[in-house]
């Protein structure tokens, strides 16, 4: 399906010069191998050595220790744009997918859980139709 779409888009580009493909990326890419190395019990510095600085820190907001770091959020966003101009009708498509890793820490600052959804590479060019 993707191959057919690519052939169609290339043909369109060559024949009339009115198809545009665009890509936008935000923040650093996340290395799946580094993400897989994060295990429960690791310290915060071990996590940041592997993944770098987090984009966001979620604090506990509890009464007795409001500034305890509850979780680190690492994120990379990829957006692929398709624009096709047919004289009077223009079609656009934008697909945004993210790599997102959240590392939860316990009260001793050790890794408790890791959640990883690496889906940035699933972003695709396309038409504004279909599922």
């Amino acid at each position, binding site marked *: 399906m993707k191959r057919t779409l690519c052939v169609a888009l290339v043909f369109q580009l060559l024949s009339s010069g009115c198809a545009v493909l665009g890509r936008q990326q935000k923040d650093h890419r996340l290395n799946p191998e580094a993400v897989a190395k994060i295990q429960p019990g690791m310290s915060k510095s071990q996590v940041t050595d592997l993944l770098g600085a987090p984009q966001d820190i979620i604090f506990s*907001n509890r009464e007795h220790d409001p500034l305890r770091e509850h*979780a680190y959020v690492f994120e990379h966003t990829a957006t692929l744009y398709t624009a096709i101009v047919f004289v*009077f009708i223009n079609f656009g498509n934008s697909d945004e*997918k993210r790599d*997102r890793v959240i590392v939860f820490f316990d009260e001793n600052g050790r890794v408790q859980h890791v959640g990883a*959804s690496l889906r940035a590479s699933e972003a695709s060019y396309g038409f504004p139709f279909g599922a």
Partner: protein
Amino acid sequence: MKARRGARAAAVLALGSILSGCTLDITRVRGGSPIKEKDYEALSVEQTTRADTLALLGTPDKVEWKLGKDYWWYYYADYINAGLRFQIPPPPFDSYSGYRHNLLRLSEESDAVSSLALVFDEKEVLLQKSLRLSETYTPPDPDAVRSRFVVSPRFDYSVDLYGDGDVDKFSDIFKNGYRAGLDFGWQMAPVATLIIGGSYEEHQGDHFGDGSGGSASAGDLRLYQAEIGVRLGIPLRLIPDILDFDKVMRELFSDDLRKAVGWRLYLQGTTGFTVNSSVDVSVNGVPAGNLYGAGIGLSGGLGAGIEYSSDRFSAFAGVDYHSIDPFNDGGSPLEDDPGAFQALLVGGGVIVKF
């Protein structure tokens, strides 16, 4: 006669301006990953843990921790922005009227976001769950037919020709003719088919004034076209509900081609190139070379009509406006520096899907 010609020219000019100045933009925006209803059902209050949830749903899009409770949200956005813009003057000139959609602007972002909210207690066990699916959400059908190739032979007859052939109008230089074509396509959704095709068009030459009181006659014009484009099919049953945006989006987002049946309005836009034959000309019965030289030019078309579709077969009838870049100078003594050749064609064809 002059007044009638003037009125017709004005009407054609107005139609051309409206068509070329009007732009319909359809943009689909998707953000995040779809939320599956069955995943939501797999979450059990007072049983599922935070770790189970991470394993099942992946990372949440938003996390807040307040007074010992974890609040998680998962979001998925899928919506269409549609807008109609009228530009003065029409493209490719710079617009005096701006580039925003000034006739129609539809966006339903807020209703087209699915969200799943979860609350965990201090023991990391699910305390509360809630789901809101977009109005346009429909459960995926595993038996859906998601793409098909199509073949479509068609035949059209031109009812009028437009454009300035320099020495005279094209409608005086050539007679109305026919066009026969064959399109191949890939139906990627019930409403949309990507098409690539070719056609042969022929117009017999006619007698016309040579511009200096004499008479001239043109040879036949033959056109060979290769174009690519998109064909949209809108079910007639959707027309009364066209302002019900959720219904329209459900139709656009459907990927089951088995739904592309019944009576439909179609709209087709194509662009590509056309090769034209040279056109002989005689002045007062004496051969005078070529009125237009053979050449190749960009061309484009816009068609609309009605079709009836069954699962594997469609038949359609409609009108098609087609425009071809000016032909080459043929080197005859007549004025032969023409404008774009345009034709209004009426016809129909069939579509076989496999």
